[in-house]
């Protein structure tokens, strides 16, 4: 049965990552934060139309979970998936360009903010329909199981998504077939503007894994140590034919749901409380406390990242629009 206590890792950063990797983890988290901040600014500035869904505050989940994967593993994620893509190594400039609708975007501008993909990185798809990417990850898990090379598939989704049929059917199928699929539930307490308890009869979604006799863990999703440690254990087990796992990461969406949502529906003080547990600040503090690096070292990393983001965003903004041509060949594979 599922462990229903909130898991918090007690391993040191050093033991878990080693010094150098720890800074790389830190860099990735900052990269995600800076990227999302820039997307927000670009939206406000009119450089992006349509919608964006950002993940500031959830960096420990995406960076920690992705760090547990190998290069040949698979991922599916959502409209709120920029962070997953960057953590996995997607080019920030190509990501910006996609979000800006440019020809140099990861999908040549055909996809957009909700659809960043890069097959070479195993970034199989970002799905804009709630829950729709989960079965796709299950399929990747079937491939992994059939190929017998120890690959795993990981799928990211929100708390609200656990109320949709696709989640349920996918959990059941993965468990019934003992597929190497890692279900990462980013429980950021809200689905759009609705607090979880207005739509869901329980707050600790880990309970749901019992319904499939699946391993389940509820973890501090703002602590990248905890995320990495838990996910790594599950991934290793899955690689070794140990079947799927469900990991509920308690976290918080520091921004609004989408576009320029000011998130006025949040109770007073809630954001401030969660800002105290900001995943990047928490990790930074641990690194300093463990004397793996100085504040100055990390400021330097942040400044580098800021530069990188500035360059990437500017480059993307300068990129050309896609040509207005016949798009049939992007719709169908045309025979030679």
């Amino acid at each position, binding site marked *: 049965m599922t462990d229903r206590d909130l898991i918090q890792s007690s391993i040191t950063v050093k033991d878990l990552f080693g010094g150098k990797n720890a800074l790389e983890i830190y860099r990735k988290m900052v990269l995600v934060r800076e990227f999302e901040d820039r997307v927000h600014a670009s939206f406000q500035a009119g450089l992006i139309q*349509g919608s964006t869904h950002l993940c500031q505050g959830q960096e420990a989940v995406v960076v920690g979970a992705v760090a547990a994967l190998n290069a040949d593993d698979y991922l599916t994620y959502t409209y709120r998936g920029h962070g997953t893509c960057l953590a996995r190594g997607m080019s920030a400039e190509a990501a910006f360009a996609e979000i800006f609708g440019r020809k140099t975007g990861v999908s040549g501008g055909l996809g957009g903010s909700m659809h960043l993909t890069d097959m070479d990185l195993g970034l199989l798809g970002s799905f804009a329909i709630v829950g729709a990417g989960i079965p796709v990850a299950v399929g990747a898990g079937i491939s992994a199981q059939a190929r017998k090379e120890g690959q795993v598939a990981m799928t990211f989704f929100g708390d609200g998504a656990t109320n949709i049929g696709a989640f349920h059917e996918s959990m059941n199928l993965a468990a019934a077939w003992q597929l190497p699929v890692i279900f990462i539930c980013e429980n950021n307490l809200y689905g759009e503007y609705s607090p979880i308890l207005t739509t869901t009869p329980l707050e600790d979604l880990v309970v749901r894994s019992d319904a499939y006799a699946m391993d389940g863990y509820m973890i501090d999703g703002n602590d990248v140590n905890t995320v990495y440690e838990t996910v790594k254990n599950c991934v290793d087990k899955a690689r070794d034919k140990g079947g799927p796992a469900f990991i509920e990461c308690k976290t918080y969406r520091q921004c609004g749901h989408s576009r320029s949502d000011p998130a006025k529906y949040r109770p007073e003080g809630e954001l401030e409380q969660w800002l105290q547990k900001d995943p990047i600040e928490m990790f930074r503090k641990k690194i300093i406390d463990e004397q793996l690096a100085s504040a100055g070292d990390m400021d330097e990393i942040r400044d580098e990242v800021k530069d990188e983001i500035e360059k990437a965003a500017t480059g993307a903004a300068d990129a050309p629009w*896609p040509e207005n041509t016949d798009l049939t060949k992007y719709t169908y594979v045309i025979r030679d």
Partner: protein
Amino acid sequence: MQTMTYREAIVAAQRDALSRNPDIIIMGEDIGAAGSPFKTTQGLFEEFGGDRVRDTPISENAFVGAALGMAITGYRPIVELMFSDFMGVCFDQIVNNIAKHRFMCGGSVEVPLVIRAMGGGGVRFGAQHSQTGETWLFPFPGLKVYCSATPSDAFHMLRSAVADKNPVVVLEHKGLMASSGEVDVNADSDSHVTGPEILREGEHVTIVASLGMVNRCLEAAEKLNEEGISAEVINIRVLRPLNTGPILESMKKTGSILVVEENHQCGGWGAEVISQMIAEGFDYIETPPRRVTLPDWPMPYSPPLEDAAIPSVDKVVETVRDMV
């Protein structure tokens, strides 16, 4: 007569319904205190309370199916689907259950429910959030399918839908939310759903359009007028049950017909309209009927590509020029 936006008209029709009929319950995602992402239920939660304006979980299949259960047990639900594309996750309930329930019960039950679905492109939401939903529903007897193109439509068609004893899907267009127009709230709502409305009279060509295409066709007609071409513009309004009578009359007069729809050509209602014109007005057709539709690919995200995909005023003008 009042001037209101399309969005306001949607709210007004629901307010009107909630006030008149205590059996009406509205359900959808974030439609309560949040007033819905497109602000189409704004103020209703405050006015009518959480029992009648209900925030649902992200479970379209359950709450659309629940609407059927409510309708056959004495209530009248209005369900909001934030994007028409989400009909995919509750399609079974719409087309297998809701559309067929009365029939499978031998006609012994009425299914008075309304699904409002907001669709359409032009607002940079990408391939999974830009479909109008017209072609999805067109094949299914048992459903009524309305398309609101103006604030007046948005108000009256929704109000008529709510009063109907059949399941009605009202398709609305995201791109029209901020458009404004005159609404006579005291007019007879049912007259809006008898079929196509002639919005502009003309002599040389009949243009039939729906949803976001209607305004573009009116604009095109204006331009054509400057060139001496007189176009009659018809807002089709009701896809099911389809009444092509007024279109036929128009075509008999103009001898030529153009359909403009924000759908792919295959499965579009335009083919049906043209086929009916051919069947019933063969001798009146002077030039081959034409269609302007989406190209045969999903909606691209990039603004210039999306703009190029959606039938434009210019494309309509050119096509008509080519016809007459």
